[in-house]
């Protein structure tokens, strides 16, 4: 499972992309795992306006994740 961070989330975590093995079964489990590993990132992910995309589609609420999923965490978009 591939996890991508954008904008200030990548600055907080110090990485933009990482592989998570074994993969998390759900989005909430993945978020909890990331927060446990890095509480600063956990707080940033819980921040206002942060959205998640699974395989490049925005997901609202929790979602089941396939083992090979690409999960991206997106802070509020700034426009171009």
């Amino acid at each position, binding site marked *: 499972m591939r996890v*991508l961070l*954008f*904008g*200030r989330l990548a*600055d907080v975590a110090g990485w933009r992309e990482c592989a998570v093995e074994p993969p998390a079964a759900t989005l909430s489990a993945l978020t909890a795992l990331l927060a446990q590993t890095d509480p600063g990132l956990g707080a940033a992910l819980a921040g206002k306006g942060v959205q998640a*995309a699974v395989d*490049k589609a925005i997901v609202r609420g929790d979602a089941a994740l396939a083992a090979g999923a690409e999960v*991206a965490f*997106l*802070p*509020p*978009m*700034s*426009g*171009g």
Partner: protein
Amino acid sequence: MIRLTDQPFDPGAELSAFCGGRTESGAVASFVGIARGDGETASALELEAYPGFTEAEIGRFADAATTRFGLHDVLIVHRHGAIATGEAIVLVATASAHRREAFEACDYLMDYLKSRAPFWKKEHGPGGARWVEPTARDLDDLARWD
């Protein structure tokens, strides 16, 4: 067509190609956004995109504009990565039967792109780098279309 590029592009050449070969469209309107220098303080702009996702999201709005204004065609070329002052950031071109729809669709698409498009903008200035979010004016401009 929606295209992201991390290299400088020539808006004039893009517009010529977009206009070429049209027989049905009586109007093409275009807008070019340029990275503006901020007085004497040197600053550089960096736009982060999510390739694949960013084009798809912009494409949804281009489709909405096509339906709303009855466009024949839309071209959006958008930079990402590091952008130097004076370089084109974005080109929007719209083709329609008559000018009003082309002008309005261009304006509509730029208001969307400036406030809602999936980019994350970082300004590198003398005081360090900061992430930029849409301004109140950008949001007011977008609300004109509701």
